[in-house]
């Protein structure tokens, strides 16, 4: 049963009827167990834990920012309870039965903000995949049309939020894994600046590139969750002491005066013309709202996509490579190939790769953001494929298609920049099309402000895949 409630609506109801938190939690768990499993999105529920948490929150501080708000998260997010039954499988048969030994810092922060943790959602194996296919844990179906992919790797998170079961879910983004599923399912996805949010306690893929962030149905809900997640964490080597910001504060200030660039070369030219045209029209629309638009050129951006692939592969091999003898037969062919590819990176090459990334960032960002505050690109470079069309396992010809999916997202990870993606319309098949705004380091507040102004114009929030969800 979908609910489609915003965090703001839930908070209002919870503060009027604190006992209702337990009832809502029970309904959400039922929906995750029913519709969530129908969509192949739910991977783990612990009703006893969630009900106890709801009971405890309901008798606590009603002013908490996520007081009694039900959430569920990508399976990579650890939670250690007394019963020690929460999974830590990384979406992989190779880790079957592995249990979380600690609670992720982000999950702890959401607990402290009063959220109710309702379970775990399907991830692509090791978070290494952009379509959402997972033969072991399940391939989530897109609520807008169940024949289509949810995108990956935070596929289950996107499916249950788009289905209206929970208002938000955490995902992780190393090459686009928050933005691609958010975009595929008509959601808002926030990939934060590298170092803003702790990754401690999250199943690792790439020590340099992994980031954590929310998928929600609105910019406001994304801002509310993001505000609870930030803060320095000494247990994450990449964590950075940054300003603590309430991202909802300036959210309604509009785009007037914000300098937005359109990255035509590489991003628009690398996307199908119907998608590129939609983004170009959106750019005009944003300018009419008062933004100061201009074209932007990012020298060398075309190399960042393959270098990001190399960095992910090299670091994934550091995490999983020493277990290959025991696990290789349990891995899907694509995961195995990525890890094998990374095995050929020597220590000297890895050091050079890190140095090249730092060099590129140091040279590029001052020039790129000299005249603009952020730039606009598509997320998916073409209309969403169906689950069948993009199944590399059964259709080797799909490999070329799948390889292109991260074209617009991976460069952002390589640059370490924050990005927010949001739906802007529908494609020829009735599936969502999304754009992303990419900003300076730690400019999440400005990105949220701009995305909110666009959201107000487009009103995608009112569109729901109800018929598809209810049609089963």
């Amino acid at each position, binding site marked *: 049963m979908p609910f489609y409630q915003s965090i703001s609506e839930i908070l209002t109801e919870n503060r009027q009827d604190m006992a209702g938190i337990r009832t809502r939690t029970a309904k959400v768990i039922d929906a995750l167990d029913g519709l969530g499993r129908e969509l192949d999105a739910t991977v783990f529920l612990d009703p006893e834990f969630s009900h106890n948490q709801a009971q405890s929150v309901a008798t606590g501080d009603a002013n908490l920012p996520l007081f009694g708000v039900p959430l569920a998260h990508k399976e990579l997010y650890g939670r250690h309870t007394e019963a020690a039954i929460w999974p830590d499988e990384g979406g992989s048969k190779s880790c079957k039965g592995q249990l979380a030994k600690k609670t992720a810092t982000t999950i702890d922060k959401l607990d402290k903000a009063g959220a109710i943790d309702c379970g775990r959602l399907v991830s692509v194996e090791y978070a290494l995949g952009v379509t959402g296919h997972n033969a072991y844990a399940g391939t989530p179906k897109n609520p807008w049309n169940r024949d289509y992919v949810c995108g990956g790797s935070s596929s289950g998170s996107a499916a249950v939020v788009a289905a209206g079961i929970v208002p938000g879910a955490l995902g992780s983004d190393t090459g686009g894994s928050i933005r691609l599923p958010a975009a595929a399912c008509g959601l808002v996805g926030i990939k934060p600046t590298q170092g803003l949010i702790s990754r401690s306690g999250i199943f690792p893929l790439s020590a340099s590139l992994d980031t954590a962030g929310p998928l929600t149905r609105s910019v406001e809900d994304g801002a509310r969750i993001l505000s609870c997640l930030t803060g320095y964490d000494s247990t994450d080597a990449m964590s950075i002491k940054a300003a603590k910001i309430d991202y909802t504060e300036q959210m309604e200030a509009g785009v007037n005066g914000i300098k937005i660039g359109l990255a035509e070369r590489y991003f628009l030219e690398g996307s199908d013309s119907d998608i590129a045209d939609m983004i170009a029209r959106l750019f005009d629309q944003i300018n009419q709202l008062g933004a100061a638009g201009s074209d932007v050129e990012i020298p060398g951006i075309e190399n960042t996509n393959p270098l990001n692939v190399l960095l992910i592969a090299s670091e994934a091999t550091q995490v999983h490579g020493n277990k290959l003898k025991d696990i290789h037969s349990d891995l899907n062919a694509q995961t195995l190939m990525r890890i094998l590819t990374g095995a050929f990176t020597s220590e000297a090459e890895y050091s050079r790769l890190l140095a090249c990334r730092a060099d*590129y960032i140091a040279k590029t960002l001052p020039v790129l953001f000299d005249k603009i505050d952020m730039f606009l690109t598509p997320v998916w470079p073409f209309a969403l494929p169906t689950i069948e069309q993009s199944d590399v396992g059964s259709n080797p010809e799909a490999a070329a298609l799948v390889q292109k999916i991260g074209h617009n997202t991976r460069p952002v990870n390589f640059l370490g920049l924050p990005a927010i993606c949001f739906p802007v319309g529908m494609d020829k098949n009735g599936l969502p099309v999304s754009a992303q705004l990419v900003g300076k380091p730690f400019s999440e507040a400005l990105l949220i402000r701009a995305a909110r102004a666009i959201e107000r114009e487009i009103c995608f929030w009112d569109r729901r895949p109800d018929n598809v969800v209810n049609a089963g």
Partner: protein
Amino acid sequence: MTDKNNDAQVKDRLAASGISPADITLAHETSAVLLDLLASYPLDDRLKKSVRDLFEEAAQSQLRSAG
């Protein structure tokens, strides 16, 4: 990860782990393309800062302007 670039050693280790020769060859070819691109990057050795250093500076700058 190897101390130095020794592809033959890596291939032997992967083969000993039970990886098929076809998979090893494909991974090696894919890696070679990516590592060639890396080698062609005009790295400026004068920059001694890490990515983390760069982002820490950006965060500090934001804190200063906010304060």
